[in-house]
C-alpha cells in the first residue's frame, strides 16, 4: 500500500492557535483586519436591512398611482421620469463615449498628444463632484441656452457626468479584444471600419454593456446634479422642455419636507433595490466577460 503523502508545511488549526499565542502582535493584527472587514460588511447589511424593514410595509398600491398629490405622494411619476432621464442621458452619452473609446483604442497613434489630453480631461471629469455638474448645467443649459428647468437640461448634465465612466469601461472592453481578431479580419480583406463595427465592437459588447449599466446606476441615484437642472416638479412632463423630478430627487424632497417619513422609507426601498439590482447585473455581465476569455 502506497504511503499517503503528507504535506510538511501544513499547520493544524490547533498549531495555528498555539503560534498565535506565542505572537501576540500577530494575533492582534489578525483580529484587527478581521474586525475591520466584518465592520464594513455589517454596515452594508445594517443599512440595507434597516431600510427594507422600515420601508417594505409602506409599499402600498396607492404609492404607485398615476398622479402625485399632496395627500398621496405617489412615486409613479418619479419612476417614469427616471426611466425617461436614463434613456435620454444614455442616448447622448453612450455614442459619444463609445466612439471616443474607439478612437482612443483603434485609431489614435501611439504618443498622440490629443490622446494624453483626452485621458487627462476624462480623469478630471470623473473627479468633479455632482454639485459642480449641477451648477454648470444651471449656468449653461438652464440659463445661457434658456432651456429653463427641464428634463433636457438634466439629460445633458448627466450625460457629461457619465461620459468618463462609459469611455473608460468601453476602452477597457476594446483593449481586451485580442489582436488576433483584428488581424484575422484584416487578413480576410476587411477594412478598418468594417473590422471595428463587425468584429471588434460586437466582441466587446458585454464589457460596454457592463459600463452602461453602471452608468444607469449613477443616473438613477443622482440628486445634486439634477435639482437645479431638471427641477423638482412632481409630474410626468409632456415635453423634454418641462421639469420633472426623478426618484432620487423625489426621495430627497420627501425626507426634507418631513411630512411623509413612512413614504420616504418606501421610496428609499424602491431606489435602493433598483440601484442594487443594477449594480449586481453589471457585475454579473462583467464576470461573464472575464469567464469567456479564459
Amino acid at each position, binding site marked *: 500500500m502506497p504511503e499517503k503523502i503528507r504535506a510538511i508545511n501544513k499547520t493544524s488549526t490547533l498549531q495555528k492557535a498555539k503560534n498565535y499565542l506565542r*505572537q501576540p502582535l500577530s494575533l492582534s493584527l489578525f483580529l484587527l483586519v478581521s474586525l475591520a472587514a466584518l465592520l464594513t460588511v455589517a454596515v452594508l*447589511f445594517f443599512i440595507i436591512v434597516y*431600510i427594507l424593514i422600515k420601508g417594505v410595509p409602506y409599499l402600498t398600491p396607492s404609492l404607485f398611482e398615476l398622479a402625485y398629490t399632496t395627500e398621496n405622494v405617489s412615486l409613479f411619476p418619479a419612476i417614469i421620469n427616471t426611466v425617461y432621464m436614463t434613456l435620454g442621458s444614455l442616448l447622448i452619452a453612450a455614442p459619444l463615449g463609445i466612439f*471616443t473609446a474607439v478612437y482612443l483604442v483603434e485609431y489614435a497613434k501611439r504618443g498622440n498628444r490629443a490622446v494624453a489630453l483626452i485621458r487627462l480631461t476624462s480623469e478630471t471629469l470623473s473627479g*468633479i463632484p455632482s454639485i459642480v455638474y449641477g*451648477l454648470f448645467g*444651471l449656468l449653461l443649459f438652464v440659463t445661457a441656452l434658456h432651456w429653463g428647468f427641464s428634463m433636457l437640461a438634466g439629460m445633458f448634465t448627466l450625460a457629461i457626468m457619465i461620459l468618463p465612466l462609459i469611455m473608460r469601461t468601453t476602452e477597457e472592453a476594446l483593449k481586451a479584444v485580442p489582436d488576433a481578431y483584428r488581424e484575422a479580419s484584416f487578413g480576410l480583406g476587411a477594412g478598418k471600419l468594417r473590422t471595428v463595427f463587425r468584429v471588434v465592437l460586437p466582441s466587446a459588447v458585454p464589457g460596454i454593456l457592463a459600463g452602461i449599466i453602471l452608468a444607469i446606476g449613477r443616473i438613477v*441615484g443622482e440628486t445634486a446634479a439634477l435639482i437645479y437642472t431638471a427641477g423638482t416638479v412632481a409630474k410626468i412632463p409632456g415635453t423634454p422642455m418641462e421639469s420633472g423630478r426623478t426618484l432620487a430627487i423625489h426621495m*430627497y424632497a420627501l425626507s426634507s419636507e418631513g411630512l411623509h417619513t413612512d413614504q420616504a422609507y418606501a421610496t428609499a426601498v424602491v431606489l435602493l433595490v433598483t*440601484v442594487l439590482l443594477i449594480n449586481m447585473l453589471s457585475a454579473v455581465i462583467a464576470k461573464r466577460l472575464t469567464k469567456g476569455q479564459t
Partner: protein
Amino acid sequence: MRLVVNPKPRRLLKKGMELLFLLCAMASILAVVLICLFLFANGIPAMKEIGLGSFLLGRDWSPSNVPPSFGIFPMILGSIYVTGGAVLVGVPVGILTAIFLARFCPKAPYQVLKPAVELLAGIPSVVYGFFGLVVIVPLVRKLLGGTGSSILTASILLGVMILPTVIGVSESALRAVPDSYYEGALALGATHERAVFFAVLPAAKSGILAGVVLGIGRAIGETMAVVMVAGNQARMPAGILKGIRTLTANIVIEMGYAADLHREALIATGVVLFAFILLINAAFSALKRRMH
C-alpha cells in the same frame, strides 16, 4: 454579373467616420473647457466685487443683511472639518479591510465580501443621507446630546461613504506588491501578519495614499448626504457636536432662491470647491504615477 462598388463614396465614408470618432473624442475636452469657462466667468466677477480676501477669509455669511456679507471661511472650514472627520472614521477601517481582502481572505468569503464592498459604492447618496437622518442623527442626539445634526454625524456618514473608494484603490495597490516582498519576509522568520504589515504594506504606501486622496475628493464633493445630516448653520465651527455648513451644502441650500450678487457668490463658492477638487485630482494623479 459582378457588382462593382464605386470606391469613392466608400473612402469618403471611411474618412467621415474617422473624423466622427475624432470629434466624439473631443467632446470630453470641450466639456472640461465649458465647465471651467462657465464657472470662472460667472464666479470670478463676484469674487472681485466682494474682494478675494473678504470672500475667502470673511467669517460672516449673511446674504440677506443690508449690506450683505459674503464670507465663505466658515464653509471652507466646515468642508475641511467634515472631510477630516470622514478620513479619521473611514480610512483606518478601509485600509484594514483592504488588507484583509488582499492578503487574509480565503476564496469563498471573498466572493461575498468583494461584491458587498462594491454595493456599498452603489448606494445613492440620498439613501445614505436618509439613513443618516433617521439612524445616526437620533443616535448621536441620544448618546451625546445636542441636536444630533453635527460635524460628528456627517463625519461618520461620510466615513462610511468613502469606504469603498479607499478599499478598492488600497486593495489593488496591495495586490500590486511583488510576492517576493512577502516571501522574503517569511523567509526571514516573520509571521504572515508581520510580513503583510511590515513588508507588503510599506511597499504599497503610495497606492494606498492615492486611495485616501481619492476618498478625500469624494468626501469634499459629497452634497446631499451632508446636507441632510450636518445641520447647515453658516457659522464658524463651534464644536464637534455642533452643526456646520459645507461648501457643497451652501450651494444646494441657497441656489434655489438666490439672485444677483448672492447667486454669483454661490457660483464663486462652486469655483472654490472646483479648485479644491482640481488640487486633489492633481495629487491623486501624481501619487498614481509614482505607484507605477
